[in-house]
């Protein structure tokens, strides 16, 4: 509750600080416009054409429908990755042996290109929801896992000693010592995983499914419809930007307020 009040209280100032970000986005739009004028609409649709296409999709309802399908897949994969990655990462961090053993495995997972997983997933799950969900999960999992692992391994020994000397009960140690520390590593990892899952789900859909934003992109490509392609890309990017800057970033600022250096 206190958290919510604090976040809402700082929202106006935060939104006001967004003008700078908006300026750079508008510059990007200008560059897009210039490029499309140079190469012609067939290669790269103009921003206004793309927005018009986006408006049409919104009107016939396909925009919301496809976004919903894609969002559901991305979030299910992400939720699985957050859950499994956080829990296993914490567990591995507690034990020295487990963290040493898991390190190379995670490096292998991180180094494996998502497109390779996608090929495997298509073999295993076919054209079902399972393919994008699995690909998202397997790509986001190592990022979250490493965050949790590092959080647990880097806990300050002096604070641990202090907790021991003060005879803090286990519950207090967990909630006042371990979790806040681990969370400061986990949270950035979660955000990175979110960005990743959103990108990967579109890629997976493009190649493997009949619906969702990725599939719609595949159709527009087949029709050589540059405006529709750009419209879908805009929808995906705007949604991600909104989620990150309107929801996650204020939350992150609030829970990590103690990190800001004062005095």
């Amino acid at each position, binding site marked *: 509750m206190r958290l919510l009040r604090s976040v809402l209280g700082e929202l106006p100032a935060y939104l006001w600080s967004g003008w700078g970000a908006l300026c750079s986005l508008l510059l990007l739009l200008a560059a897009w416009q210039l490029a499309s004028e140079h190469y012609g609409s067939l290669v790269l649709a103009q921003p206004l054409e793309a927005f018009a296409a986006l408006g049409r999709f919104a009107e016939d309802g396909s925009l919301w429908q496809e976004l919903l399908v894609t969002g559901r897949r991305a979030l299910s994969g992400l939720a699985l990755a957050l859950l499994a990655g956080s829990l296993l990462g914490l567990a591995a961090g507690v034990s020295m042996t487990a963290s040493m053993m898991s390190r190379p495995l995670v490096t292998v997972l991180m180094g494996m290109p998502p497109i390779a997983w996608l090929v495997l997933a298509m073999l295993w799950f076919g054209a079902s929801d399972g393919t994008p969900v699995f690909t998202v999960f397997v790509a986001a999992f190592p990022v979250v896992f490493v965050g949790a692992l590092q959080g647990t391994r880097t806990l300050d020994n002096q604070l641990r000693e*202090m907790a021991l*000397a*003060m005879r803090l009960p286990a519950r207090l140690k967990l909630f006042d010592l371990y979790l*806040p520390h681990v969370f400061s590593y986990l949270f950035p990892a979660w955000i990175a995983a979110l960005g990743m899952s959103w990108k990967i789900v579109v890629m997976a859909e493009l190649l493997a499914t009949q619906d969702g934003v990725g599939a719609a992109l595949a159709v527009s490509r087949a029709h050589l419809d540059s405006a529709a392609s750009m419209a879908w890309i805009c929808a995906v990017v705007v949604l991600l930007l909104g989620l990150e800057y309107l929801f996650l970033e204020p939350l992150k600022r609030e829970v990590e307020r103690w990190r800001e*250096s004062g005095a």
Partner: protein
Amino acid sequence: MNNPSSAARLRVRGLGHEFVRTRVLDDIHFELAAGELCALVGPSGCGKTTLLHLCNGLLDVQDGVIDNDFSSQASMFQQPRLLPWQSTLDNIALGLKAAGVARRERQQRARALALRLGLAASDMDKFPRQLSGGMQSRVALARALLLQPQLLLLDEPFSALDIGLKAELYQLLLNEQAERGMAVLMITHDLMEAVRLCDSILLMAAEPGRIVARYQLALPALQRDDAWVYQHTAELLQQPAVRASFGLPEHPARPPADGLAGGLQVQALPSSPGLPRAGRC
């Protein structure tokens, strides 16, 4: 109201400790009664912190016995060791939270003590990073004192502070100690700090860490003034055992016998029946 359990004491007998076959503590004997302030002085690396960790229960006792009848104890370390994600008030109240005291009450008590220890009302909601080093030390002291411990274990808590802050925190500590009658065991390598604060001084020597001499200071700490502290620190520095332990040159400016003449209250005592190595120094 003072000395609720004056019979309580900390007894350490024949304590020894090894880290990977290196003997860091050997045959330590001492006793600390309620209301007594005792300093462990010695050169760096002589096992003072290990001894304190053993008393604190942070290490398991290998040889010997530690009898601790004090019903409660608190510690303060060289660094403040505050939880960076909690406010000043929550940091101070941490011990009470562990004891299950309700939030409103523990915050009230923490606030009252913090104000007494010289923290400002505006500091209460700040995070440790926003406080100066001196203020962080106050918070750490408040966190330890809020528990009203019968035994307070201090590990060079004032060594990083400037002399003005030190003097202020000494006074705060002595006032609290006199009011509650708690026992204090403190580590320091600053002889003047030991002479200013403590009733007895245990001198340790290194390799292996052992107690080589014990000095008593009769005048109550609150009645000592600067001149008294300087004089007695100087006298302590003349003691052959002190010079040997800290590796100072053997011949002091004044012969030690002079320093101890004239009915002064610094006296070297054997701290335990054994102490075979006292003569070595």
